[in-house]
């Protein structure tokens, strides 16, 4: 009989269950086991444990893994450009911000702190969009949807089409994105491609071309609006032009007689376009499709979160996003309606913190009302993103909220807000209410326009009003407070409060 030490035995049993013993060793062990039932019992436990461990519970698979990874890799490769704070010419960036705020009795002043803070906040959103799980908003569009978008600038946000994204433009190249409840709007005509083809007298071959045109733009629309798991939205700047581009491309494919019919059709459905160049013959399909750029020419997105809005350059891996959409039907038509409602509710809440920034020649404004919120994006496109837009002229009325407004700062009161940043002026309004008392920082400043800057700290029964200051006056370095200290102070204040404020995000970094 073989005599084994405990350590030898452990080692041999381990090798045995891994199938690493040779036949002679195996036979020797089996002989030993027959004489030692307690060891045989131990072996049984080890074998069963190995078997169970081999079927160890697995992590649920992550369908988004590659998409998220590829975007992170892409973003690491691309030097992200913050067009608000980095790309403007130095002369343009010489904007004065003088901020005085009181947080928990802390009094500080420093333009750069706020600048840095808002920049970081925007970058945070940008990073979240770049590296977090993002979802294309329009994943299940039909050609009918694309045609409706082309003619009326509206895209359904939910399957019942109760909520819509409305894209508007005016002559001054201002774009407006409005998320609205459809039932609050006058009933619009819902058109179909078949109805359109019949009305315009489109032949079978042409219908195929029109389907292809709509399909091509559908692919672009799929990635024009992205939403993140953190309720942030990124809207590609080309979305505002795409509706016109679709109509124009369709017009290019029509013969002169069909163009006349198309104009009649536009009038009948009250689509806001006028066809021009009626006599031009139909463009060859090959040339027509060459005119549609295969990929976006810019990487600029309007980004919106519950407390930040801005314009950012983001290089997304759109093919990966499309891949996910096409390969995983379960992700289609996600419930984004709720997200928009949440966002609208947050945005028009008077207690909420708001940051908006922009830079010349871009300007972004967000205006929340009780029923919807609007994103106004004024931009001079760097290039005409789509060829062939000369075929039509938009007849769309200028947006009500934009028409006739003087240039400059606008504030719509506490239930709504407008934030602007231009080359020569900046405006920031931050409203925050702490459970311990109202805290409010309101900062609207422009050297040129001489607006006001005001800090109220009602919980301390203290109001400080500070007028415009000369930007050449440099704040003393020793009085500067690091932004982290400021934020920590703010957090302390919140922690002291009986109940946490749900709108405290602005001061959380």
């Amino acid at each position, binding site marked *: 009989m073989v005599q084994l030490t405990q350590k030898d035995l*452990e*080692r041999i*049993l*381990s*090798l045995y*269950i*891994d199938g*690493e013993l040779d036949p002679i060793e195996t036979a020797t062990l089996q002989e030993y086991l027959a004489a030692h039932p307690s060891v045989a019992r*131990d072996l049984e*436990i*080890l074998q*069963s*444990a*190995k078997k*169970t*461990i*081999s*079927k*160890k*519970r*697995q*992590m649920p*698979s*992550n369908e988004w*893994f*590659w998409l*998220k*990874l*590829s975007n*992170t*890799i892409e973003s*690491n490769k691309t030097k992200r450009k913050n067009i608000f704070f980095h790309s403007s010419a130095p002369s343009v960036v010489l904007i004065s911000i003088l901020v005085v705020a009181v947080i928990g009795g802390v009094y500080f002043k420093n333009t750069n702190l706020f600048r840095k803070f808002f920049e970081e906040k925007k970058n945070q959103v940008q990073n979240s969009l770049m590296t977090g799980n993002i979802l294309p908003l329009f994943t299940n569009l039909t050609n009918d949807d694309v045609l409706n978008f082309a003619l009326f600038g509206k895209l359904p946000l939910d399957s019942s089409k109760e909520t819509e994204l409305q894209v508007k433009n005016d002559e001054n190249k201002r774009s407006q994105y409005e998320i609205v409840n459809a039932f609050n709007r006058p009933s619009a005509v819902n058109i179909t491609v078949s109805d359109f083809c019949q009305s315009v007298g489109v032949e079978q071959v042409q219908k195929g071309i029109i389907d292809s045109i709509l399909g091509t733009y559908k692919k672009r629309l799929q990635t024009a609006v992205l939403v993140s798991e953190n309720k942030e939205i990124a809207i590609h700047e080309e979305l505002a032009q795409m509706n016109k581009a679709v109509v124009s491309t369709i017009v290019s494919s029509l013969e002169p007689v069909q163009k006349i019919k198309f104009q009649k059709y536009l009038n009948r459905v009250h689509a806001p376009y006028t066809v021009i160049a009626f006599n031009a013959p139909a463009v060859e399909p090959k040339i027509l499709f060459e005119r549609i750029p295969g990929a976006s020419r810019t990487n600029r997105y309007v980004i919106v979160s519950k407390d930040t809005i801005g314009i950012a350059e983001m290089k997304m891996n759109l093919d990966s996003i499309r891949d996910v959409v096409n390969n995983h039907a379960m992700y289609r038509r996600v419930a984004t309606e709720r997200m928009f409602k949440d966002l609208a509710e947050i945005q028009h809440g008077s207690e909420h913190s708001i940051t908006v920034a922009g830079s010349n020649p871009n300007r972004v404004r967000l205006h929340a009302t009780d029923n919807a919120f609007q994103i106004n994006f004024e931009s001079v496109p760097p290039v005409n993103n789509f060829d062939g837009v000369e075929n039509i002229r938009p007849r769309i009325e200028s947006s009500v909220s934009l028409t006739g407004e003087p240039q400059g700062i606008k504030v719509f009161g506490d239930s709504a807000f407008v934030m602007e940043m231009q080359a020569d002026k900046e405006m920031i309004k931050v409203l925050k209410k702490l459970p311990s008392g109202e805290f409010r920082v309101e900062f609207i400043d422009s050297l040129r326009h001489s607006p006001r800057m005001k800090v109220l700290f009602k919980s301390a029964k203290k109001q400080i009003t500070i007028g415009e200051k000369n930007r050449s006056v440099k704040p003393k370095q020793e009085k500067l407070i690091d932004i982290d200290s400021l934020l920590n102070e703010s957090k302390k204040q919140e922690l002291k409060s009986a109940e946490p404020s749900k709108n405290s995000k602005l001061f959380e970094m």
Partner: protein
Amino acid sequence: MTKTAVINIQNANLPNSQKSDDALITLFQNGDKAVFRYLVERYQEKVRNLIFSIFNEQDIVDDLAQEIFIKVFEALPKFRFESSFYTWLYRITINKSRDEMRKRKVKRFFTFHHIEQTSKIIIENLSPVAFDDENIHEVIEESLNKLPEKYRLPIVLKDVDGMSYDEIADILKCEVGTVKSRLSRGRTMLKEILSPLLLQN
């Protein structure tokens, strides 16, 4: 003929999804960065599960797995084919996980103590089960999590991933004899934890 040339000839006509790891890496090193996707998709679940085995927390898995693959993406141009891709990947995974563990231990000393205590309580509160009981998985996982990492990892690599002793030694940067003795010791410890929890029949 060089190794790279052999790989290219053998895999030239295959779709990327079926090419060997080495062939994909060769393509990657020659500028075709898009093939990285196939490597990720081939191993992402293995890496995620290995992280889960180490931390036993779902929350950390995806973030850490992303970091690992970013590191792999950055290091792949310098990969020298001295070991197989997946042992190299596992080594990176384990090293990154250990880094993360160290960070956590520093930052969350008390929390870790709490976790240890909680784990102990869970073990103590488990009712004895038979091997054919559906709760046996829970009992064994909890017991496995009780083992120190140096004994737990070889067991996971051997029993879950089915690796050979040589591969485990390569990943853990130790001798094969060390792997064998850690497996043996780890299993004995596991048996000692499990024995009182198992019904005698």
